[in-house]
Structures are given as structure tokens and as C-alpha cells.
């Protein structure tokens, strides 16, 4: 495991008072809490800060942490046997063999009546819930997909020892997931201990950016490039949809930015129906112009009465 400098994480001296530790935590938690912060790396920073606080706010855990001595952050590390014997249930010197540093102090009180949050007086400790962000493609949201997740969760064995255990989870996501959709997998979180129920796994779905489509809810938007004459005269053009190409009738006089709706061609809704696909017209000016095109545009200029900046004059 790698050593974590909890005092450095909170930005306090090793001799800091409990009050100083609490103030430092509150200041950093407000700054980095992932539910309120948009700072880059906020979630990782908050995790460090919360892990440090969970240990340092508890005098017993803090004393045990201090007894490990001061080491460089991230140094490969193994608790000394005498420390392990002293702090594990029943003096088991292998109790912390396959845990993360973060799990080391969470384990206190799991067995042996140390009185921590994991006491079993009420007949078991429920397993931990886990929340995992999952990115899927727009195609997967359209067709549905099966997610195969490889997770690592802290888990107690029958003897009360904590281990990091790999969890493979396979979950079928039906068509129709959108950005922000939450899914709950009951009982797929951390294992309960001594009869406690297993925790749940929550998946927070987000959609990967797509080269063509932009999603908002179940509606999709796609840019529809049009030649000036297609926009002016109208045309029938092919538009790619998630279910294949369809023909779209572009009305004469379609301006740039006009949204043309293809009903029911967006993402399916989980309980039936579907969002729409909007093709957003973008008039593309030919460039470079050939000599012939230049002549024809010149003739059009001379023949037309259109003034695209009429509103400027009206506003004067």
C-alpha cells in the first residue's frame, strides 16, 4: 500500500489541535465537495481530504496513524508487525495484508469491541453503497447495451478482516438512457457483514460526445449543411439518423439555424415513444469559387432585390 500524509492533505501541522483539523477540513470540503465544486480534480481532492479527516478527527485513529511515523507521500509502505498486532482484532498480524491505506483505519472496531462505527450490537453492518460514473455512446443509448464493470470494493471476511475484493458486474441497460440517468443495482455494492444487507451499486450515466449528434434529453440535434440554392429553392436531402438514412424535404427559403424536425427519430424513451431528431440548417457558402460560379453569383446579385441587412436601415 502507499502511505498517505493526512496532515499534508488537510494542510495542517502534525501537532494541530482537533479544532484546527476540523476547520481545515470544513474549508477544504466546501471547496472540493464533488456535489458543489466544479474545480478540476475536485472529487479526487475531496476523497483525500475526507479520508484524512475521518482518521484525524478520531483521537484513537489519529494516535494509531501517528504511531506509523511520518513518511513521504505515496511511499510504498507496510504497517510494522508490532503495529498490526496492536491494532488488529485478536492480534492478527496479517489483518491488513491486502487493504488500501484508506481502508486501514476504517477497519478499526470491526471486531473485538473497539466500539467504532462497525459494532455488531444490532446484528450486522450493511454493506457500503457505491456510485460509479459510466459513459456510454449515443448508439448504445439508442440500442441498449450491456455494461461489464470491473470494480474493487472493500469487504469483510467472516473473521472480520477487511480485503479489497474485485467485483465483476454485468448490467443490461435498456434503450433510452440519457445524460444524468441514474440506475440502481440492488445488492451489488459492498457485502454486508454479520448478516447486514448487501449495499447497492448506483450507475450515473452520461453520454459520450458524438461526431454528428448532440443530445438533450431524448432529443438529438444534427447540423444539416445546405448549399445556398438548396436553402433558397428547397431540396430533398439525405439525413443520417441512428436507425439509418432518411430523406428530408427542405422547404424553399430555409434560413441558417432553422430547425427541421424528424419526429420520433431521437433516442427511444424507456417506456415507449422516442424523442425527435432536429436537423439544424447551415447554409454553406461555396469556396473557392470557379470563374463560372463567380459569373453566376454576379448575375444573381444584379438580378435580386434582396437586402439581407434591411433591418439595419429600419432600426436607424
Amino acid at each position: 500500500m502507499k502511505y498517505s500524509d493526512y496532515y499534508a492533505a488537510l494542510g495542517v501541522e502534525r501537532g494541530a489541535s482537533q479544532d484546527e483539523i476540523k476547520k481545515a477540513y470544513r474549508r477544504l470540503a466546501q471547496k472540493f465537495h464533488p456535489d458543489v465544486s466544479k474545480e478540476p480534480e475536485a472529487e479526487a481532492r475531496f476523497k483525500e481530504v475526507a479520508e484524512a479527516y475521518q482518521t484525524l478527527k478520531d483521537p484513537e485513529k489519529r494516535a494509531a496513524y501517528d504511531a506509523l511515523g511520518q513518511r513521504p507521500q505515496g511511499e510504498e509502505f507496510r504497517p510494522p508487525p508490532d503495529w498490526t498486532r496492536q491494532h488488529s482484532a485478536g492480534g492478527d498480524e496479517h489483518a491488513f495484508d491486502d487493504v488500501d491505506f484508506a481502508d486501514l483505519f476504517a477497519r478499526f472496531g470491526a471486531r473485538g469491541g473497539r466500539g467504532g462505527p462497525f459494532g455488531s450490537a444490532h446484528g450486522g453492518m450493511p454493506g457500503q453503497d457505491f456510485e460509479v460514473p459510466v459513459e456510454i455512446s449515443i448508439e448504445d443509448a439508442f440500442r441498449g447495451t450491456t455494461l461489464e464493470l470491473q470494480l474493487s470494493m472493500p469487504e469483510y471476511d467472516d473473521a472480520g478482516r477487511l480485503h479489497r475484493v474485485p467485483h465483476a458486474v454485468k448490467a443490461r441497460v435498456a434503450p433510452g438512457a440519457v445524460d444524468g440517468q441514474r440506475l440502481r443495482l440492488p445488492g451489488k455494492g459492498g457485502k454486508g457483514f454479520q448478516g447486514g444487507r448487501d449495499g447497492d451499486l448506483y450507475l450515473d450515466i452520461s453520454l459520450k460526445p458524438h461526431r454528428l449528434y448532440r443530445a438533450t434529453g431524448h432529443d438529438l440535434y444534427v447540423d444539416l449543411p445546405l448549399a445556398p440554392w438548396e436553402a433558397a429553392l428547397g431540396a430533398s436531402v439525405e439525413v443520417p439518423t441512428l436507425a439509418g438514412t432518411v430523406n428530408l424535404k427542405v422547404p424553399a427559403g430555409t434560413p441558417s439555424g432553422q430547425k427541421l424536425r424528424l419526429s420520433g427519430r431521437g433516442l427511444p424513451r424507456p417506456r415507449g415513444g422516442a424523442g425527435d431528431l432536429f436537423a439544424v440548417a447551415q447554409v454553406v457558402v461555396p469556396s473557392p469559387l470557379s470563374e463560372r460560379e463567380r459569373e453566376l453569383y454576379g448575375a444573381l446579385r444584379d438580378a435580386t432585390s434582396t437586402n439581407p441587412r434591411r433591418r439595419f436601415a429600419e432600426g436607424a
Partner: protein
Amino acid sequence: MSIETEVLWLDEHRVVSLEELVQCSGLAREELLELVHGGVIPAREVHGTSYTFSARVIGVARTASRLRSELELDITGLGVALRLLERVSTLEDEIARLRAILPRG
């Protein structure tokens, strides 16, 4: 070897009880009810002391639980924080919608 598992969609079509919401969020029943009565977590139906909710609010309740324990907020601060987060979320959704409409260029 993993076995395909049950997946519950937390959306407006799924209904959960107060007890299920307590279990999923980790909040105490009294705390949840304060948030419900304060209008922060909307109930779908109320019959006397029986409440049902859209499963969508599980996310809000779990956020409330995290904020309460990790930022050590009291119920009043929690209510304010959740209302502000809801406004931020609404604005972010609106920005995302407007960005989707804009051509990529």
C-alpha cells in the same frame, strides 16, 4: 464470471416508499420528512403518514445525505444547499440544451 443483474431505472415512472428512500439515502426518516415538508424533496402522494416518491428523488436524497455528513450541514443549511444545487442543475440543463441547438461550426 459475473451474472447479469437487476437494473432499476431511477426515473419518474418508478415509485418508491419513504422506507425505501430512507434505506437508499442513509438519511433518518425525520430528516427526510423535514426536507419533504420544506418542499426540497417532493412527495408524489401523501396519505396521512404514508408517502410515495418518484424514484428520481433518490439521487437528491443521496446528495442530501452526503452533504449532511461530509459538510456537517444542519437541516436548514442542507435545504438551502439542495435548492441551490437544483437551480444550478436546471441552468446547466438549459445551457446544454442551448449548446445542442447551436451549430458546431
